[in-house]
């Protein structure tokens, strides 16, 4: 455990932060600009994972396991969420035969 921690600490913390921010931003951009809901879901997953990465890095730097425990929770929840999301998409596909996000605009004003 210690070794892993120290190995992780070899790389400066900023790099982890920058990386996860970059990942997070890429995911965000994906969510913002993609029209296919499946792709959006994947981008969301990317955002979750960037958070996981960040938490793990911090956890290592602080030598505190809580962060990594949290990562597990996040993974579980994210999985559940994706499951629900996918099923909603399936339902949508059944209803309108499309997974284009811009079709979802009947509820407005």
């Amino acid at each position, binding site marked *: 455990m210690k070794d892993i921690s120290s190995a992780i600490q070899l790389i400066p913390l900023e790099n982890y932060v920058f990386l996860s921010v970059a990942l997070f931003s890429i995911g*965000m951009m994906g*969510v*913002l600009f993609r*029209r296919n809901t499946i792709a959006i879901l994947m981008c969301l997953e990317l955002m979750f994972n960037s958070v996981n990465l960040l938490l793990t890095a911090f956890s290592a730097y602080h030598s505190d396991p809580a962060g990594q425990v949290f990562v597990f929770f996040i993974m579980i929840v994210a999985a559940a969420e994706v499951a629900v999301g996918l099923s909603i998409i399936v339902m949508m596909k059944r209803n309108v035969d499309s997974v284009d*996000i*811009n079709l*979802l*605009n*009947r*509820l*407005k*004003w």
Partner: protein
Amino acid sequence: MVALISTIAWLVPAFPLLGFLITGLAKNRLKNNQAGIIASTLVSFSFITAVILFFSLRSSGQDSVTVTLFNWISAGDLKIPFAFLIDHLSITMMLIVTGVGALIHIYSIGYMHGDERVNSFFAQMNLFTFSMLLLVMGANYLILFIGWEGVGFCSYLLIGFWFKNPAFNYAARKAFVMNRIGDLGFILGIILLFFTFKSVSFTEVFAQAGTLQAGAPLITLITILLLVGAVGKSAQIPLYTWLPDAMAGPTPVSALIHAATMVTAGIYMIARSSILYNLAPITLNIMIGLGLATAIFAAVIGLRQNDIKKVLAYSTVSQLGYMFLALGLGAYSSAVFHLTTHAFFKALLFLGAGSIIHAMGGEQDIRKMGGLRKKMPVTYFTFLAATLAISGIPPFSGFFSKDLILTKAFENNPVLYVLALGGALITCFYMFRLLYLVFFGDQRLSSAHPHESPRVMTIPLIILSILSVFGGFLNIPELFGGKSGLGEFLHSAIISKVTEELAGSTEIGLIISSLALLGLIILLAYRTYVKKAIIPAEDSKSLSSFSKAITNKFYIDEIYTALFERPFGFLSDFFFYNVENKVLDAAVDGIGTATSRLGGLARKLQAGNMSFYLFAMVGGILLFIIFILIV
């Protein structure tokens, strides 16, 4: 005796009030002449009571008796009892009001006979008498004001008595509103009096008046405000135009209200306040100017009027002007004297005119009359007596009263005398013009069948003519060996200004010259309207611009309409359509509409588009990040 006075004083106004209640409440039950008889009887009772009061007061040896009925308003310093003041002035007025009033009531039984609303008529007449009595009997300015407004209201009712006619209703409203303009001044004057003296009771105010400096701005302001009230009520320039229009009412109304009593209320009030006015020379001068101007102006208009009642109306305005002149000269008791004689002869003239109109079947245009002398002898002779009286021919009553005023004018300033005399001459001319046109020559309206009026109408005429002839003897000046009876009698209530007496010779000279002029004028009128039998032109005929102006009453009504009535209407419309609707309400609604519009926009923000929501969210987050990092 004082106890007697205190006991019965309230009966004087109570009788007509009772009459009002009976005839008013039972108006659907009373038949034929019942209402008229009840009303006349009660006013006569009132008169009898007033006579008893008169003698009681003389024998009591007191100048005045205050009778308090109950406390009307009592708030802080403002204590206003419902009280009557019985003194020489008020008793004089009471006698005139009830006496002349009773005669006119009796006359009305005949005149109004057959009118479907005769019961209402008598109810209103009684209410008027009641108010007028309150006015003259009130022991303080506020009780006076009750009567003051009350008579105005009754006048409104009676002018618009024949309410089918919109013009009559308009005249009635005009009278009331113009009176109200005066009343506002009056009430403000009363309020100022109250703040100055902490009382509005006559006795207390006059007792303290001496403490004020003569000519102080405050007292001038107060007297001017009171004057505004009097100007409205007594139809002086500039508030006189309602009076000629008020002739829309039945003729007895014109006789009682618009000649004998109500319009003289202003004179009474100022005479009552003589002590205050003596302290305000500026106001007195204003009154001289107003009175003289009104006297002449109205007389000039009277020259070319062809409606018998209009002529008399302008004549009333003119005579009231004389009274104002007398007031302005500080000769208050002379004004009251003229008021008294005027009450007699002007009531007589109106009643005579009523008799004529009655006989002519409602025709009021003197151009269509003529030759009535033989058909209506009683009316003719009584009318003649009144005409002589108003023209100031000795020894008729008008001579004494008018001469007194003229003399006072001369004492003040000969120019005033000349002007006043000029007015008197014009009066003489139009009165004789009227007389000649109506009674002389041939009958010009073939359709009418004039006849003498019934006795119930002629007897009051005769009584009034006796009063008109001999009324002057109430106050024979020392010059003719009299004792100025009325003047002396009123002396306890009115403090006239002391002026330098004219020498007896000057006075006689003046009288003779004026009489000569009067004679000339009568001759001139005779030549014009009897000898040459000139009938005034039809309305449509073209006239010289000046006589056209006179015929149209100098366009004063039109000017008032253009100056006040129309702009008021415009203002009303402007306020309502432009200010109220387009600014104030629009502002309120505008806030609502604007919010609602914004609401519409805010709704559109919720576009339903997922991408937009996501962008908005990210945008919001970014903005907040920037915000917290900068701040």
